[in-house]
């Protein structure tokens, strides 16, 4: 097909479109949904009994802060990446990745400095919470990304996966009463990494199918 014919074909099929809201608005929409989902899960299952005491412990606070920074920054970067030219700099992708690394390092450091035995590495409830909350929030984010135009499916899916699993992990941390750093590392960080990997693979595939030469008028 010649380019002139393609232009005519595209123009002929071009109806009015609904403009996508700016990435900043879409970030708040997703964060609102994700925060609501996390709050519902925490209220439904019940927060840990000693939450008041837990928030005075540096490791708990550092871990939760790292997760929240990762969630907000990853959502912002993923949604900006889904609009051509909206990402200010690829260097912004470093922040969510660094926050996730800080989250893992927090618990690694606690293991290194803790002398206590490690009783329970994996708890099914934590794994289910991370998986379910991660899947629901991740699917919502993926749907929003597919409505835009993510030109780099792998990067966008990877960063979106970070947003999904970190909000799920933050909610799980507020619920989970097990303070053992080994449990946090294996039962939370490792599970989140596995869920995130699955979310990345699924998300990359769906975004690539949508945007690498298959979406047409």
């Amino acid at each position: 097909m010649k380019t002139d014919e393609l232009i005519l074909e595209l123009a002929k099929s071009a109806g009015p479109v609904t403009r996508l809201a700016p990435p900043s608005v879409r970030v708040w929409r997703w964060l609102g949904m994700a925060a609501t989902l996390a709050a519902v899960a925490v209220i439904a299952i019940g927060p840990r009994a000693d939450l008041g005491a837990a928030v005075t412990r540096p490791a708990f606070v550092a871990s939760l802060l790292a997760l929240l920074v990762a969630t907000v920054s990853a959502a912002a970067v993923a949604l900006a990446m889904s609009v051509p030219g909206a990402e200010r700099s690829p260097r912004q992708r470093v922040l969510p990745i660094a926050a996730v690394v800080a989250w893992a390092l927090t618990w690694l450091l606690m293991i290194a400095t803790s002398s206590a035995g490690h009783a329970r590495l994996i708890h099914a409830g934590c794994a289910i919470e991370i998986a379910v909350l991660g899947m629901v929030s991740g699917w919502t984010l993926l749907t929003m990304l597919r409505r835009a135009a993510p030109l780099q499916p792998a990067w966008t899916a990877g960063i979106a996966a970070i947003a999904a699993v970190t909000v799920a992990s933050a909610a799980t941390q507020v619920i989970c009463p097990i303070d053992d750093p080994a449990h946090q590392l294996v039962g939370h960080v490792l599970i989140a990494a596995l869920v995130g990997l699955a979310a990345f693979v699924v998300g990359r595939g769906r975004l690539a199918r949508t945007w690498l030469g298959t979406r047409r008028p």
Partner: protein
Amino acid sequence: MTSEQERQSAAWMRLAQGGDQAAYASLLAMLTSVTRRFARARVGDVGWVDDVVQETLLTIHGARHTYDPARPFAPWFYAIASSRMIDVLRRERRVRSREIADDTLPESPSEVVSESDIDVKAIHAALAALPARQRDVIEGMKFRDESVRDVAGRTKMSESAVKVTAHRGYRTLRRLLGGRHED
């Protein structure tokens, strides 16, 4: 893209988002020459520059709802053009590496085959090199005698999308099989 072109592009795109097909055709025509210059400045006057142009136009079509008139047009457009140029460049490299690998295959006299066999093999190899959606559309229309409507129904694409996908597939096939490239 000059500042005048950017101003004009933004105005046309605003109209196109509202459904003005004439403004949209004017925009795409102007972006064709801008994209061609952009690609030639980076990769030279290679045969697949028109692929970059067409891929860019198709992506602009699918992404036109993401353009925010409150923001400058050029970063939005160049992000798409750069991305499509990289995709086409990667595809060309992949195709070229397959062609080189194929050149080394025939070794023994027992593998000598007739002219028609070579064609069939080449066609199958070229089909295998196509993106999955293009291969699916072409196989449906040419091997399974499906109509455009049948393929559109099966793949959940619009009929014009099926035609565009098929045309792009044929063009790639022609290039892979050594035919002349259109446009």
